[in-house]
């Protein structure tokens, strides 16, 4: 834990002291930019992740995201998991990412999140609002079970109102059935 704090402090100093160099370093990385908001993901599922190592944040944040920041969460942990049609069960391929979310949230204990449930367009509006709420709560329950305190997590459903893929077809629907964990406050 101490190592982690030290590492963060070092990084912060490095960023403050050498912003230009740091930015230049960022620009040379394979990912040229990092987003200020959750980017629309182009894959239906995030790559599986193992638990983040406790330290060495410089090498673990190749886009330059500050550990504990919203960018760090979005880029290095992943903010979205996906669901099967008509289902709110957490899929097996979503658990590594949710495990990483819970680890990150336990590490940065001041962060509060809102889980936003989403549904694809193949349902009617009100039922899909209820279905999205179920998905958000499935993620919430998983994170709570993994040790994140419940009062740090709120939920909402956007139903089918906010698709991340505007297309129509299985590939688009796969992406639009998801729950996004949005950092609300407490991030660095």
């Amino acid at each position, binding site marked *: 834990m101490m190592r982690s704090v030290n590492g963060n402090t070092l990084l912060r100093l490095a960023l403050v002291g050498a912003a230009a160099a740091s930015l230049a370093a960022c620009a040379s990385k394979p990912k040229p930019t990092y987003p200020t908001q959750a980017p629309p993901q182009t894959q239906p599922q995030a790559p599986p992740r193992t638990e983040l190592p406790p330290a060495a944040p410089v090498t673990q944040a190749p886009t330059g995201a500050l550990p504990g920041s919203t960018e760090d969460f979005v880029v290095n942990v992943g903010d979205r998991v996906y669901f099967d049609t*008509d289902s*709110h069960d957490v899929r097996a391929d979503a658990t590594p990412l949710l495990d990483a979310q819970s680890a990150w949230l336990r590490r940065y204990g001041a962060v509060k999140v*809102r889980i936003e449930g989403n549904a694809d*367009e*193949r*349902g*009617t*509006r*009100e*039922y899909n*609002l*209820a*279905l999205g*709420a*179920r998905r*958000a*709560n*499935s993620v919430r*329950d998983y994170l709570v079970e993994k040790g994140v305190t419940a009062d740090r997590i*709120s*939920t*909402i*459903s*956007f*139903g089918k*109102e906010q*698709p*991340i*893929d*505007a*297309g*129509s*077809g299985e590939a688009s629907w796969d992406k639009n059935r998801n729950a996004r964990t949005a950092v*609300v406050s407490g991030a660095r």
Partner: protein
Amino acid sequence: MTRSLRSFSAPVMAMVLLGLLAVFLAAPARAEIEVNVNRGDVQPLPVAVPAFGGTQGADIAQVIAANLQRSGLFRPLDPASFVEKNLTAAVQPRFGDWKTINAQALVNGQVTVEGGKLRVDFRMWDVFAEQQMLGLQFTSSPENWRRVAHKISDAVYERLTGEKGYFDTRVVFVAESGGRAKVIKRLAIMDQDGANPSYLTSGDSIVMTPRFSSNSQEITYMSLRPDSSSIFLFNLETARRESLGAFPGMVFAPRFSPDGGKVAFSVERGGNSDIFVMNLSSRTSTRLTSDPSIDTSASFSPDGARIVFNSDRGGSPQLYLMGADGSGQRRISGGGGRYTTPVWSPTGEFIAFTKQTGGEFHIGVMRPDGSDERLLTSSYLDEGPTWAPNGRVLMFSRETPGGPPKLWTVDVTGRVLQPMPYPGAGSDPAWSPLLN
């Protein structure tokens, strides 16, 4: 001639008694033309609506003809075919001229503007019986000429079908703009023929599922923000808007009770959605369902005694019925497929719904006991029916893959399916009661 049965067991539709034409011609003065709304196997009734005399007389006639045409029960004849020209409401038509073009009914009138008031005198004639069926006068302000035309349309419809019309009504809906990924949703209102559209909200929050009170110009709708949802009441005459209040969890799917005194809605907490009803004068809420499944989209019967709703407690979304106090919950939808958005008809005889089956969406109707299910439409995405106040026509939204939603209507027989004459993108239509 006796009025037709209102029974719906037969394939429903406009029946024009063309077959009895000979009877009309030979019959004594009591014989009348009549449109039977309960049968669908005959042609629409040919009617003539020549331009009314006076200022905007042609406009008024066009609105009337368009209303009658869209009902599917009438076929307005091409004015170019008319033999008698410049017919006024002051003289009897030359019936022979109208028989020649086989006009069964003739609607003519005169517009007068006096002292800043618009007066419209109109008459409807049974051409082959050579008798007047209707003679009425409407007075209003000149800018209200479309409403006068709608009221005349309602009078003609009622006189010929024996049922109330639905033309002097409005539709509240969600106007959509900005494309699917960045959609802006604004509450909007327009006449039932798509005229006079205007926005009611600014678009700074997502609005959904407006519903009219069945006895006033008041609506209830849901608003969704990034971190919360609310249900609003909105009086269209006073522009007064108020929230139903704060609830733990999401609130959605509001519907008025028939007397306007209560609102049924869904509250979601911990992923479980249940139906509550709030008394609007005491502001107390009662929980009606407590199943751990999704319970939503409540709709009252016209007598207020029962509620049809949507639940997936049996494993897939189906339609259920209960008493208005939550008692006696039982499933009524039986077929395969997913049933959602039940809406009780204003007459009480049907429940309209959205059904998903075989990769398609349908608007359908069934009786309140679940029998006599009929699917009226089929497309990539049809959703969210609302009833015209006479229970003869449904409006809903239709989407093509990747396209914006558009408003469509279908009559309760399924024969008369057409897009609304409103060019923009719209969803979640809610049909008003007849205006006063």
